[in-house]
Every structure is written in C-alpha cells, then in structure tokens.
C-alpha cells in the first residue's frame, strides 16, 4: 500500500484538527483545544494510506517551523469561512509551503460552512481558481464535503 504524507495548514482555530478528527475518527467536539506542534493520524483512502499531519496553526504561519512540511505529497489549506483574515492568510501560508517544499498538490477547505455569517469575498474565490485549486466548503461539525475534500487531494497526488 502506498503511503502519502499530507499536511493540514492554516490559521489557528480554523478547524484543522476538527477536520482531521472528523475524517479519521468520525468524531467532532465543539470545544476549542489548540494543537501544539504536530499530531499525526492515518487514514486509508482506496489503496493509499494517508498520513495526515495536523500542524499547529501558529506553526503553519511561521517559516521557521516549516520543517514539518518536508516530505509532504500534498497540502490542505484550511480557512475559516466566517473569518475573512484566515482566508486572506492562505496565500501567505502557500508562499511558505512553496519556499520549503516546492509546488505540491493543494486543496482548499473553507471550514465552518454550518455557520451563518459566511464572509468569503469574491476576490478570494477568484484567487483560488487562478491557482487552479479545488475549493471545498466544509463543515467538520456536520461532515459536509470533508471526505470529498480529502478524496480530491489524494486523486491529485496519485495522478
């Protein structure tokens, strides 16, 4: 079985851990618990064993700590659909990723799609499509688009 490392990156409290836990263990908690360093989980999609690196939000933003990215075959850029600044930050995070490991397959997860105050600007959508990234409005809480998002990334990696 092929093993592929992917990294969940994005601002703090956008739901990287929640998305990973929903995907891997099918559990969700409303309680916010910040991640320190990296948590590593595994899940199987088709004939691929996915090693999911859930990177702390603070570390996603810091080029010094970009060592976690080394060896990643794909990236999930996670933003909070209700906090515009977390979406704006994704392009900066992507620059850090590119500098460290070059261009790898990417999907974008705009999380918390279950909430009402959705505030993703048209410019953001335009930017993502210019980059050729698939964008998913996900909800770790109700599970929408979570599997689809990981599936899409795996397909990009294996093709």
């Amino acid at each position: 079985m092929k093993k592929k490392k992917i990294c969940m990156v994005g601002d703090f409290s956008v739901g990287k851990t929640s998305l990973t836990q929903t995907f891997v263990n099918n559990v969700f908690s409303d309680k916010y618990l910040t991640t320190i360093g990296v948590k590593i989980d595994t899940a199987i999609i088709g004939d691929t064993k996915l090693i999911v690196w859930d990177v702390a939000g603070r570390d996603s933003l810091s080029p010094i700590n970009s060592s976690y990215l080394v060896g990643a075959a794909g990236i999930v850029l996670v933003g909070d659909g209700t906090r515009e600044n977390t979406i704006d930050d994704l392009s900066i995070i992507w620059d850090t990723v590119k500098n460290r490991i070059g261009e790898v397959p990417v999907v974008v997860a705009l999380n918390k799609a279950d909430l009402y105050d959705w505030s993703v600007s048209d410019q953001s959508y335009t930017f993502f499509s210019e980059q050729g990234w698939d964008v998913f409005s996900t909800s770790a809480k109700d599970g929408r688009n979570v599997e689809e998002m990981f599936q899409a990334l795996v397909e990009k990696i294996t093709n």
Partner: protein
Amino acid sequence: MEERRLQQQINEQLFKKLQLAYFCVDKSMRVTCFSKNLRNYGYDSVLVGAEIEEHVDFMIGLDAQTELDLPMVESPSGTPVAVSLLPSSGELTVLISDASGHAEQRQLLQQKANENELLLEQQHKLMGQLSLASKELESKNQQLEEASRLQTSFISGVSHEFRTPLTSIIGYTNLVKEDLLLVSESEPEVKASAQQNSEHLRAVQRSSKHLLSLVENLLDHGKLDSNEIFIRPKSTDLAELFDDVALLLKPLSDSKNIEFKLDIELTNSFMAVMDDSRLRQCLINLVGNAIKFTDQGSVTLTARLADESLTISVADTGLGISPENLKKIRLPFWQAADTGKAGTGLGLTITERIIELMGGDLDISSELGKGTCVSFEVPAPMLLETPIGECSTVSGSKVLLAEDDADIADLVAMMMSEAGVDVTHVENGALAIEALRDQPFDLVLMDINMPVMTGYEALEKLQESKNKTPVVILSASSIEADRAKAESLGCFDYLVKPVDIGDIFQIMNRVVDQESL
C-alpha cells in the same frame, strides 16, 4: 570494527542517561540499528533491516540526506517528542527525546493566547457590524427626515391653498343666507323654500367651517414641525379671555345637554403678559375635546392665577382613556378608533406643543369610563404698569414712522413724542429707506399699504442692504398670511390696527432687552 562497536556502546550509555531514543537507517531507508527504549514511545515494531516507512509514520516522504528538526510531534504512545534527523556519510541517525515537559506549559499558554486573539477578532467584527449598522441607520434617518420635511412642506402648501377658497365659500354662503332671510321677509310666498334653502346653506357652512378648522390644524402642525410658530406675549385680560372661551363653547355643551362649569380664581391682577390668541386656541381645543368625548355629566374648566403662574385644568366625566391609548394619544394623527369621533388627530398634538412653547407641560390623567383631566401650568408674568413718560427705555429713543395716513401718523407721533420719543414721520417706504440711510433709528414703525413703496418692498430693501434696525409692522390686515409674509421678510413684530400705543412701548422695551443681551 571493534572501535565502532565501542563507540556504539558509549553512545547507548550516553543516550540512556539523556533519556534519548534513536534509530539509524542506510541509504535505502532500512534500519541498521536502534535503541531499545524506542518502544517507550510506541515505536515497537522497529527491526533491523526493516523499511523505516512501514514502522515510523513521521519518516514517510523523507530520505537519508534530510537534516531536520521537528520540535514537537505526537508519538504513537501519546507522548510528545522532539525529533532530530542527522545525516552523516550516507547514513541517517534519528534522535527522539521526550518533549512532554514543556509541551503542557506551551499548550496552556498557546491556548490562552489564541482564545484572546479570537475574542479580539470577534470584538473587532462586531464593532465593524455595529458601525455599519449605525451608518445605515443614520442614512435611513436622514432619508426619513427629508421625507418628513417634504411631507410637512407639502401639507403646509396644500393647506394654504385650501384656506383661501374655503374662506370665500364661508363668506359667500353667509351672504347668500342673509339674502335669503331678506327675501323670505319681503316675499312670504317663498318663505318655505327659502327656509329649506337656508337649512341647506347651514349644512354647507358647517361642513366648510369644519374643513377650515382641519386645514388650519394641518397648517399649525406644519408650522410647529418647522418651528415657525412663535409665542407673542402681550398684555392679556385673562378674565375676558375665559369669558370668551365660555361664550364660544357654551352652545356646544348645551347642544349635548352637558353642564359646562367655570371655576376661575384670578387673584391680584388678571392682566398678564401672555400670547392670548395661542392660549385661547389651547383652551378651545382642550375644552372642545372634553365636550366632544363627554355624553353626560359635566366639563369643568378650572383656572388659578398665582405667583405669576397660570394653572389650568379641564376635567370631564366622559368616556375616559384606556392606559394603552393614553400612551398613544399624544402622537400626531392618532385617533381613538372606537369612539367614532371625527377630527384630524392633530388638536392635542398642537395644543401640547404650544403649551411647551409657552413654557409648560401638558399632563393627562384618565380612567376609562370615569373621565379625563388634562392640566398644565404656564408662566404668566404680571403686567408692570410703568407710567409711559417715566419709561427710561422708551424716552429719548429715535423712532421712524412710515405711514401715509396723516390721521394715524399724527396720532401715533403725538402719543409717542409725549412719552419722550423722538419721532420722524415719512409718508412711504421709499422715504423710509432714505431716512434710514441718512441716520440711525432705534425702531421703525411701518405701514404696509403705502403709495410709491409698500411696507413689504421696504422690508425687502432693508434686508438686501443688511440694515438691522428692528421694524414693527402696523397693518390693517389681521390675515395670518400677511403676518407670515412680513415675518418672512424679517420684521421684528406685527401689530394689527387699531394699534394700542402701549403695545408699541412694550415692543420697544423688548428691543432694548434683546440688544442688551
């Protein structure tokens, strides 16, 4: 070879002491050696010769040349570990140490910091929404204000246009009615039909008068809205004023078979300085309302004048007002739906505003089925009877009198000069402008209807030349529109002939008071 084994033993001792675990891989990422304590962290399937990717997840995607520090990774045992990858001569040594010591502390600090920042973000967002909402409200408010202003000016305009034809309808109906009366007296054979026609005319008149009062209410409301109603205090005979009101409203109460009681106590003097016509308007309105909403019993008008203050109350034994309606009753255009009484719903609003302008507050108390009592208290300064000749502010002042009627001019001039006023008399507006250009005056008394240049034109000219001398208009017209026109042209006051010379002196005192402010 022996040396290397020795080195390895030393290392192992050292690592044990430092609580370090380790493993080594060759170029093809197969395990060459590892420490036994590796399994303390949950990496318990590692074997020499095995592919490292199969046994240690964090090694996936890495090669033997990678030099890397991973400060904090959760190991399979759940313990956070620090990992260092140290490549040397084609081999890779990976060191693993326990990082749980400061992980816990970092977690706490980071958690707090993130939560704080989230709160700040949320606060920021809310503030943004709040300021957006308040801006929206502000612009809505402006739109509403503009709409209301337009509405007011529209209503005022239309009401004004209505009033003139209505006045003439009422006037001509009156004439026709009088004619009919004469005809029926001189020609008895048409008496019956004349009487019937006269009944019809009375109906026309009643309706027209009702319309006129509605229009006048609308006009007043518009003026109050645009602050165009002024209180003009003058010496007022309160006893006469109450008699007037009683005389006017008695027929109304009689027609409904209810008693109209007057309880008037005017201690000291009954002359007070008040706006008699506005006070009359308020009284007529309040008493009229009381009679309108009372079907049996009585309406009592109580007045007390004491300490330069006039207290009025109007109590009835009528329908009363429910507590929820009592809240709405002061709203413009509001009318009790269940009483079936007609009106504009403006009377009380106007009355309340006028009382406020006079310096009082309208108080309404009521009990459903028992009756209503409205009351207010307004300042009523006593008239100070200063002998005119001794009035220092009047004596010695210079007044320009523009009046074409010699009879009036001579009389006014004479009375004023007897009070020590220096009067200059001219016959028309143009001469008045000339005189004002030549020398300063304290006051101008100006007729409207004059040859060569009317009082209106003269006022206009003075406004253009920025001459600030106060002008008091003496007009034979009591029509409100004429007064409004003169006021819009900047006159200081407007007196209707026959003018009481005392009123002029009062105005002169007011001019001096204003100038000394």
